[in-house]
Structures are given as C-alpha cells and as structure tokens.
C-alpha cells in the first residue's frame, strides 16, 4: 500500500473532533396512494471516524431511506425532520448546491447494483476522473485526474489498470464494476462512506473480495463506514457496531459481539436464528419469523414487531417500547419490554432463538433409512455436454468459437435425497438444469430420469416423464403468470396431465394447505402476495403432480432471510412427508449445507468435487471448494475475525476459452505455490475425479484436506 500513503491524507487527522455523522431523531415520510408512508420514525445513531457501523434489517425497514436522507438524495416529495449533523454541520435544510459540495467529496456512497451505478456511455476511467474533477476543478488538471483514476483502479485491485481504465462498464464483470464504484467512492478521500448492500448482487467469492476491499478503503481513507445489509453474516467480521432496524426504527444497537451473543430483542434473535450456519454439521433448526413486516402507512399502537413476536404479551400492544440500555451498559440498547426475560435464558445467540421461537428440525424421510445404494436412482447424468456456438457476421454467420457451458458432468440422485449443486454464476449450473428439464437428446453424454434415457424417448414418453419431475424457479415474481389466479396457476399442471375437474378442485386447496397458505385466497392474483408466499405457491404448483424429483433453481436466494428460513423449513418438511428427491441449485453454501445430503461443486462446466455434504464441508479436498467455503461469512463475529480467508484472484475465465489442463489453475492458490514441474502437470493434464473418502470425490492432482471453517 505504498502508493496509497502518497495519495491520501493521513487517517489520523479528522477534520473535527467527535463523530463524523450524528443522526438525531430522524423522521422521513413519503406520500403514497394508501396514505403517508412513515419510512423512518425517530432514528438516532452516530458514526465515529474510522468506525464501521452495520445497519441490518429486512427490506422495507427503512435502512436505505435513512442513508439516502444523509446523502440528501431523497425525492422532493419526502418530508424529513430531525437532525443530521455531518462533522458538526447540519445537513437538513441545506439546498442541493451546498449538499453537492459535500456529496462525493466528504461523504460518498457505494450502491447495490454496480451496473446501474455506472454510466454505460463513458469509460470507467473517465467516470472516476469526473468524480475528482467535479470537486477539485481548477486545482487538478484533466491529465492528473486521469492518472489518479488509473492509480485508484490499481488500488482497488483491477489488473492492468492503465488499459482497463479505457474500458466501458459493460466490459467489466460485476465484481470489477463494484470495485470501480468503490474506487470512485474513495477518489476524494471522503470522511464517510455509505455502502448500501454492496455485495448483495455479487457472487460469494467476489463478495469476499469486495468486503476486503472496503476494509482496505477504510484503512487508506480513515473514513467512517456505514454498511447496510440484510445479511447478518456479511457484517459479522467487518462491522464494529451494529444497529438492527425494524419498521423504520432502531430496535437494537450495540457492539457487534454483544448483539451476536446476547441479542435482547426478539427480532434480532429471530434474524440470527433464521440464518443457516455453514459451520454447524448437525441438523440445525431454522427459525422462521412468521408474517410480514408491517405496512408503514398506519401503524397500530404498540410494538410494531408484536404481531410476529413469539414472546408477545398484552402490554406489548399498549405503547411502542423505547430503546433502553440493557445489561447495564449504555453501549447496548434494545427496544423491548421483556429484555430481562430474554437475558434470563441460558442459551446464547441462535440457540436462544430456537428456544424462544420454538423451531423444530424436520424428521428424516422414511426412505432415507434405507442404505443409499439400495434406493432407486431418480436422476442420472452421465458425461453430459452442452456447447453453444459463437457466431460472427450478419448475413453469413460463421462459427468463430464454442462456449463449453457444460463439459461432461456426471452425478446421480437417489430417491429421497437432496443433491446441492453449487458454483459461481457462469459455471454452468443453470445450463445443466435446463438440459435436464428440456429432456431432449443431449449433445453428448446421457440424461436418464427414473431409468428412462432422454436420448431415446418419444414425445409421449417425454410427456409422461414430466409428471415425475417438476421445477421451482428462483424469482417468485416471474415464475407465476401475473394474469392467472392462484387457483389456475396451481391447477395448470393437473389440467395439462388430464386430471378430472373435481379432482383438481379438491386438490388445489389441499396443496395450498400443504405449503402453509390459506385456501380462501385462491381467487387472488399472484401480484397480491409477498415474495415468500409466491415461492410457496410455486412449490405447491411443483408438487401438484406428486413428482418424484423436484428441481429447485435457487429457490430462496431472492427472499429475505427471515422468509427464507420458512421456505427452507417447508422444503425439508415436504421432503420428509412426501419422500421427494431434490436437485437444489444454489450459490449460497450455508443453505446447501443445511438442506442437502450430498453436494456437487461446479467450476467452468465441470464438477470438481462431489460427495456427502459433511465430508465435503468439513474436509474439502479441492482448492476451489476450500476457497468457496472460506468466502462464506459466518454470523459469529469472534469466529469470523479469527478465520483465515482464501481470496480468489480475478474472475471466472470465459467458458469459450477455458484454460488447458486443470480449469481452475489460473485462479488456484495451490497451483501458484507449486514447484514448476508440478505446475506443468496442472497445465497439461486434466485432473479426473478420484475417490478421496467414502462418497467423496475430487478432481485435483494435489488434493489435500484444508480446514476452512
């Protein structure tokens, strides 16, 4: 970091004494069709120089709105009251021109979606240079600003920064774009950086890189950081203090360690208990928080969390509890009238949540008691290949290359079993799924569903197989036809497969109850349901034909954590009740660890490690698996700080031009440490899957166990 020391002021000289940001009793409300939405209701917090404050909450809890208020970026229809003091200077009531002098220079922001945060028509270098020129006009020449932009890109770890500065945003991958946005945020050496869900849109390996980069940014600028997230795991190792928001208010705040170990508000408890843990091998009960966040238009009196709270008593409905000091320390505050009783429970953190919310672990399905090799094979892939041509030319299309999306993968799923398929985006997971679901003759290899090979089925047989295999998609918004009622959505597969009308009318309410929804809502449209409910409807539709295999394409990644737990519990319960087999595609390894029996790790169209879930997670053999696992944050600040993180360099290589030999070698930390003659083996010979332990295979020439959890 020698360059950075030259570029930035020394962190030890804050402009003024005291906190960088002091928010007192902030209220924000918006007009809406249904009445005024009180998005933020009396929020107070402060950020000291060099401190990282994490703001955690579900979507709609007001966490983004409160930080947009700090930036002065709220629409003019918003009504703001209270006080926002930045370095002792009041920001509320300042006009846009005055705020613009502070914005981007003293306070900067990193947005969630790195694609829309950059202008597509200017080069990345120009955009960073613009951020400098806007604030230092006259003092900095254009050439100097451009030079500085390149230095910043270099600092945020973009290789070959001189060349890449001339690239347009669409030529950058998601992770690189977010780096560029961070480079822009630190360009003027700000005193406060607000990061709004900076890693939500990114892959886990990239998430680890970006978090580390934010840490670096904090070190070099000495700025206070406000990091907003819905994922308690992300902030555990990064934040110093934490504030949990619910319904526009802070419901708990304190030091990170205290909140994770002694949460004193049932909502925080629920949030902690709803996260599947990567580091827990035995079946852990997930805590679903029932219901949905309240509407912020007219809140009933009393605690806004009361309708969802397992500890609710009559007193909760009388008045909204204020934030009070708990455990006798002024640092830790919670807004609950029963904090003492929570403090009285012996269990800590997530265990207390399980105790209070009364979560249960679903039983093992009957069929799982039969040894695995005696169960029927539901789905088998044998050396499946899928390639796409890369064409060039408009009139005469000529083939200039091939994208090897799936390059010969094999696995099987047996009755009553869940196979988790994991990997970064672009590794071929979705292509594999689509190949399985399409049931056409594959380009190479073989797909067999329940013993029937897809290469020699006719239309009739294919139609029959569709009955035994169904799919749940990732996006609950897009997977239901907005113009069909829920009844018609769930009934559709049965209509296709010729069920009688009374049979359908009997089964649809039954399915609704099975997935935990009330059947009297059947004549509503999907748009009237929340994301979690829609995903349940999607599951009900998938179960309509009583399939043997359900293909789940990232079924919980679009949901809030508290809702996600409910859907995962439902999936587990259904599996044990109906003896289903799942093919569970996900990028979230903690969810996979929780739900899967076996796991297959994909990298660039190949399965590089496969096996029994505990064996793979506790003793990963392939360096990629180790890197993936180490990149997943654990919601435990103490553990998280002690963990050694393997940061993968760079992005996924293009599948049109995969590296020779071992496909992972370009990013492999193990490969980099090897002597040249061994390296040559990686470059020349493609490693095959070899048995490492019972039901555990890995494809690496130099496989060795490395504990990363």
């Amino acid at each position, binding site marked *: 970091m020698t360059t950075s020391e030259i570029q930035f002021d020394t962190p030890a000289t804050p402009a003024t004494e005291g906190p960088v940001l002091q928010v007192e009793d902030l209220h924000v409300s918006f007009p809406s069709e249904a009445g005024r939405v009180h998005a933020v209701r009396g929020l107070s917090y402060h950020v000291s120089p060099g401190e990282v404050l994490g703001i955690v909450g579900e979507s709609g809890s007001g966490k983004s709105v409160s930080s947009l208020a700090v930036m002065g970026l709220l629409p003019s229809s918003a009504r703001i009251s209270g006080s926002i003091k930045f370095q002792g200077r009041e920001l509320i009531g300042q006009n846009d021109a005055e705020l613009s002098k502070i914005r981007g220079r003293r306070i900067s922001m990193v947005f969630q979606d790195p694609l829309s945060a950059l202008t597509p028509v200017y080069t990345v270098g120009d955009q960073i240079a613009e951020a400098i020129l806007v604030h230092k006009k006259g003092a900095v020449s254009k050439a100097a600003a451009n030079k500085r932009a390149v230095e910043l890109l270099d600092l945020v770890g973009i290789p070959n920064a001189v060349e890449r500065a001339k690239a347009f945003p669409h030529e950058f991958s998601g992770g690189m774009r977010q780096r560029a946005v961070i480079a822009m945020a630190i360009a003027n050496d700000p005193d406060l950086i607000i990061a709004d869900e900076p890693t939500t849109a990114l892959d886990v390996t990239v998430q680890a890189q970006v978090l580390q980069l934010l840490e670096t940014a904090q070190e070099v600028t000495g700025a206070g950081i406000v990091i907003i997230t819905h994922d308690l795991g992300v902030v555990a190792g990064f934040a110093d203090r934490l504030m949990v928001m619910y319904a526009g208010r802070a419901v708990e705040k304190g030091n990170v360690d205290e909140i994770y170990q002694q949460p004193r508000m049932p909502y925080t408890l629920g949030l902690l208990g709803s996260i599947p843990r990567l580091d827990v091998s035995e079946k852990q009960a997930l805590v679903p928080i029932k219901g949905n966040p309240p509407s912020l238009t007219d809140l009933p009196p009393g605690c806004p969390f009361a309708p969802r709270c397992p500890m609710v008593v009559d007193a909760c409905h009388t008045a909204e509890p204020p934030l009070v000091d708990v455990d006798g320390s002024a640092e830790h505050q919670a807004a609950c009238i029963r904090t003492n009783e929570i403090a009285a429970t012996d269990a800590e953190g997530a265990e207390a949540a399980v105790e209070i919310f009364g979560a249960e672990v679903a039983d093992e399905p009957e069929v799982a008691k039969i040894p695995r090799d005696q169960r029927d094979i539901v789905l088998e892939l044998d050396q499946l290949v899928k390639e796409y041509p890369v064409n060039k030319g408009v009139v005469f299309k000529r083939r200039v290359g091939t994208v090897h999306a799936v390059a010969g993968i094999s696995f099987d799923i047996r009755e009553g079993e869940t196979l988790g398929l994991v990997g970064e985006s672009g590794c071929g997971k979705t292509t594999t799924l689509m190949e399985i679901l399409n049931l056409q003759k594959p380009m190479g290899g073989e797909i067999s569903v329940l013993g029937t090979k897809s290469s020699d089925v006719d239309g009739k047989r294919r139609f029959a197989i569709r009955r035994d295999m169904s799919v749940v998609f990732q996006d609950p918004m897009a997977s239901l*036809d907005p113009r069909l009622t829920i009844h018609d959505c769930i009934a559709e597969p049965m209509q296709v497969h010729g069920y009688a009308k009374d049979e359908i009318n009997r089964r649809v309410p039954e399915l609704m109850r099975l997935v935990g929804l009330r*059947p009297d809502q059947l004549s509503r449209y999907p748009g009237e349901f929340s994301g979690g409910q829609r995903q349940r409807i999607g599951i009900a539709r998938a179960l309509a034909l009583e399939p043997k295999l359900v293909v789940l394409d990232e079924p919980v990644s679009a949901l809030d954590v508290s809702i996600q737990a409910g859907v995962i519990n439902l999936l587990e319960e259904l599996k044990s009740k109906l003896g289903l087999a799942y093919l569970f595609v996900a990028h979230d390894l903690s969810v996979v660890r929780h739900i899967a029996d076996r796991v297959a790790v994909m990298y660039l169209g190949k399965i590089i490690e496969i096996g029994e879930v505990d064996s793979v997670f506790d003793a990963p053999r392939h360096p990629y698996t180790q890197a993936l696992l180490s990149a997943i944050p654990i919601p435990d600040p103490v553990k998280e700080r002690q963990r050694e993180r393997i940061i993968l360099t760079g992005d996924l290589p293009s599948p049109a031009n995969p590296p020779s030999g071992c496909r992972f070698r370009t990013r492999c930390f193990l490969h980099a440490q090897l002597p040249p003659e061994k390296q040559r083996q990686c470059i020349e010979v493609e490693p095959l899957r070899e048995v490492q332990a019972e039901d555990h295979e890995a494809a690496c020439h130099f496989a060795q166990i490395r504990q990363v959890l």
Partner: protein
Amino acid sequence: MTVILNEGDAAGTTGAASGSPVDAAPEPEKAMTRGRLVLIRFMRNKLALVGLVVIIGMYLMAFVGPLLSKWTYDQQDYAAFLEPPYADHIFGTDKIGTDMFALTMRGLQKSLIIGLLVALISTTIAAVVGAAAGYFLGVADKALMWVVDLLLVLPSFLIIAILSPWFRGKSWWLLVIMLAAFQWMITARIVRGMTLTLKEREFVKAAKFMGQPARKIIAKHIVPNMASLLIIDATINVGSAVLAETGLSFFGFGVQSPDVSLGTMIGLYAESATTFPWLFLFPAGFLVVFVLAVNWVGDGLRDALDPTSTRVRRKEKKTKEKAAA
C-alpha cells in the same frame, strides 16, 4: 380476437361450472376460474357496461329500426327534399328525398359489421402471427416476418386498385378481408417482440416443463399477457377500419351506391355540414358514439384482465365499506 375470446371464455367456463354437479353446494373455499373473475371485474366497471349496452343498442337499432320505419334507404320521398328533421322524417331528408333515418341505419349496419369484424380479424391475425413467429422462431419466424415485411412495403391502395375490377359486385366479405389484410402487420411485429421477452419469463418455461403444448402456452400465457396492447389495438382499428372503408368505397368498390355506410355518408355530406347539418351530424354522431363505446368496453376489458389495475379493486373496497355501513 382477445376481446371476444375472453368474453367467450368467460361465458364458456362459467356455464360449464354452473352446469357441473360438483358445484351444487359451493364450498366456501372454492376458487373462481379466471374467466369468471374477469367477468366479475368487468361487471364492476360501470362505464364499460354502459359502452356494452350502447353497442348492443346500436346493433338493435341498426337492424330492427328500419323495420319500424315506413321508409327504406333506397326509397325517395318526392314531397320532401332537404327537409330538416320533423315528425314524418325524424332525421330529415337529403336532396333527392331519401329518408335520413333509413339511410343512417343502413349505413350503421354496414359500418358496425365492417368496423368490428375488421378490428377483430386484423388483431387476431396480428396476435397469432406475431406470437407464433416469436415463440417458434427459426423457419416459421423467417417465413411469417417475410410476409409481414412484404405486405408493409406493398402499396395497399395500388393493389386494391388493380384488383378492383375483379371485386366489383362481389360480397362485402371481400371488403372486410381486404381491409383486415392491410391492417395487422405493424401490430404483428410488436407482438413478436413482446413474445420474445415473454418467452424467457419463468412462468412460460414452467408451463413448458410441465408438458403444456406450444399452442396452449401461446393461448394461455403469451396472448393474455399482451391483452392490454391487443385491446388497445383492436379499439383503434375499429375507427380506422370505418374510415379506410370510406377510402376504398371512393375507389369504386366496397360499399356502392345506392347502398351506404357511415363512411360514405360522412364523405358525401361533409360539405353540407354547415348548410344542412342534419345530413352530416347524424352519421358522424353515430360513428363517434360507436367508437367511444368500443373504447369504453376496451378499457373495461383491459382493466378486468389486468390484475395490477387498481381501478376495479378500489371500487371493491368502497362497496365493502358500504356493506359495512
């Protein structure tokens, strides 16, 4: 097409449902089918109902009215030339003594049929061709889009002029088909584009993976999701078909004298609009009311079909409040 299809669909399913024995004792949790729900939502929209009543009323008037009148459209009253409306001729007479009421009703008959049919046929062709091209792609797409492009570049009036000797004296059906044939191409292109995006939506994939055949996917998922566009297109087409028919009639085929349509009447009497206003105002007034009513019905259908529309729902709340009070 969608307009009628959905209405027909609604009627069909509700009819079937009420006829089946299982529904004899409706369970409280029994769900409504889409057709029934759309019908209920449509019925809530007062303006659309008014529009529907007006259209039905105009049909009745056009076909029953002349039977009640003592004049016919090809008869002349030599005792009354260019008379303003009075008891004997309630819409007045033209310069050769033809009863304007009989004439307007005759024109209305033609225009109602031509307007609605052309709109329905052209929108149907557009929906089917566009959705098929977008959904199947490949050869089907190439062939269909080639036809679309061809028809777009051909000067339609020139073709009709060349063909007009052959048309002379043939049935009005040919006119409807000719008019429809030159009105659907641009919509078909838009529909194709929308199909391309809809096709990638997960609910279409889900339907495909449950074994739903392609034609049903198009009918059940793709076309209803474009209903707003198609309905707007159809309502606009009603008006433009009536006007296009006027143009064609001017070229010497289509509706020929002594037979009339609203279009020919408007064309013929436009110059008398200020001097003998009844000649112009009656046919023009009927055309305006007709197009307006079609638009109301179209709006109502669109709101009924579109689940995100809050207009119908807000009314729901109001009625509930009323019920509570």
